[in-house]
């Protein structure tokens, strides 16, 4: 096993940070590192948090960290902020809202630039999740770039997808929810210390019951970060809602994307499943498997 991957799996923080840099950069080193890290993955629960700008995603993650720490969980965060379309640079400020956890050895926070990628995440995010998983973090909290419109990728990479909205969005509620309602496992109305929260929650419940004929639909939870209310319900809901097979889903999504984007083709579910299995069971490299698919 490579030295860096071994150090990551042994829980060395500086090496984990360096590994994330290598994975973000991509290329041969990233592929080799990812391959070794994959041997150690499969334990972390990945929680995706998405929602419109300013909804309180980072603040809520800050509060979640506290609650999860009280349960004795070791918590990692990937906070994605948008890169500038002009320069490619970015100001990454999400972790500011999580400042009280900076010195907690049971918390690891990493700021990530979307590096030009749309969909609310960066291209390297699946690999970054794997690294945190391999390093033994129990929970990975993943904050998307707040678009709330097209961040549906999160559902593919997270075991639980949390959609955060706020009171007083008015008609925007409709727009935001159009794509996201289907993929969210938990709906949160944050800032419920502000007027209108009950109404927003009701609207969401109504939309949910219209959309699905199932009797069960995602819970709607009201939270307030300053009042520390609703956070514990959210945490217990996370545990209940987490879907099995998140890791398989992540690989699946990634393989499809690699192959389809490189070769502009559509793949059957059957083929993709088999490819996933060869990555999972035989430890084969994703890019190679993707190319194999494409070369068929």
């Amino acid at each position, binding site marked *: 096993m490579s030295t860096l991957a071994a150090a990551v799996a042994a829980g060395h923080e500086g090496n984990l940070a360096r590994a994330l840099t290598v994975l973000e950069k*991509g290329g041969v080193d*990233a592929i080799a590192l990812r391959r070794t890290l994959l041997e150690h993955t499969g334990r972390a629960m990945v929680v995706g948090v998405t929602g419109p700008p300013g909804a309180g995603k980072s603040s809520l993650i800050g509060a979640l960290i506290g609650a999860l720490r009280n349960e004795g969980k070791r918590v990692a965060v990937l906070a994605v902020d948008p890169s500038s379309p002009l320069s490619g*640079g970015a100001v990454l400020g999400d*972790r*500011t809202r999580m400042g009280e956890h900076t010195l907690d050895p049971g918390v690891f926070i990493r700021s990530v630039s979307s590096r030009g990628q749309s969909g609310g995440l960066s291209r390297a995010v699946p690999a970054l999740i794997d690294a945190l998983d391999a390093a033994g973090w129990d929970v990975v909290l993943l904050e998307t770039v707040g678009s709330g419109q097209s961040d549906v990728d999160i559902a593919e990479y997270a075991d639980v997808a949390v959609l955060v909205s706020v009171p007083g969005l008015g008609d925007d509620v409709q727009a935001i929810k159009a794509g996201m309602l289907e993929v969210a496992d938990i709906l949160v109305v944050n800032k419920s210390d502000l007027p209108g929260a009950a109404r927003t929650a009701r609207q969401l419940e109504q939309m949910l019951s219209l959309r699905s004929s199932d009797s069960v639909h995602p819970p709607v939870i009201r939270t307030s970060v300053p009042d520390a209310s609703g956070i514990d319900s959210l945490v217990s809901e996370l545990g209940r809602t987490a879907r099995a097979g998140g890791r398989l889903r992540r690989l699946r999504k990634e393989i499809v994307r690699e192959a389809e984007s490189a070769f502009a083709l559509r793949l059957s579910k059957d083929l993709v499943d088999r490819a996933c299995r060869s990555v999972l069971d035989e430890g084969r490299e994703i890019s190679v498997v993707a190319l194999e698919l494409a070369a068929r």
Partner: protein
Amino acid sequence: MGGLDDADRSHAYSECERVLARILTKRKAAPVDTPIRVLITKIGLDGHDRGSRIIAAYLRDAGHEVVYTPPWQTISGVVRLALQEDVEVIGVSSLATDHLIVPDLLRELAEAGLDDVAVVVGGIVPDSEHAMLTDAGVGRIFGPGSSRDEIVDAVNQLGAAVRDRRSRAEVPA
């Protein structure tokens, strides 16, 4: 893959590796221009944050990834941030004498194994205190009126040097 015998499979596999290798060499040959990661922060009690905000924007516009913190960070907090964020450069803005504790920051960085990170200071630093900072290992000091180009050039240079040193020291992945 279903429907392939072993010979087919091994042929497909080597074909894939060939294509992959080609893609990767092409990617590698292109100038690797990953952004420099910079932490812009303020330690101590000074709340003047205009300068640090402007610097963060300059560096973003120059294509870098800036982890930005508000004022009032502690030294140990900055060290942990630098470690987790794997930054190459730390910029400390000081308008009210907090640069006096920058040598302590450098010491704690070294203790955490981060002695290769470049540290720059900006703001109001009396000339008589420059030597104290540079002796402690501060890379550059920028006073009021420093131009965008000056600052960006220095961060580019220092960041590239750190990256170069790290890539040579790197354990192969």
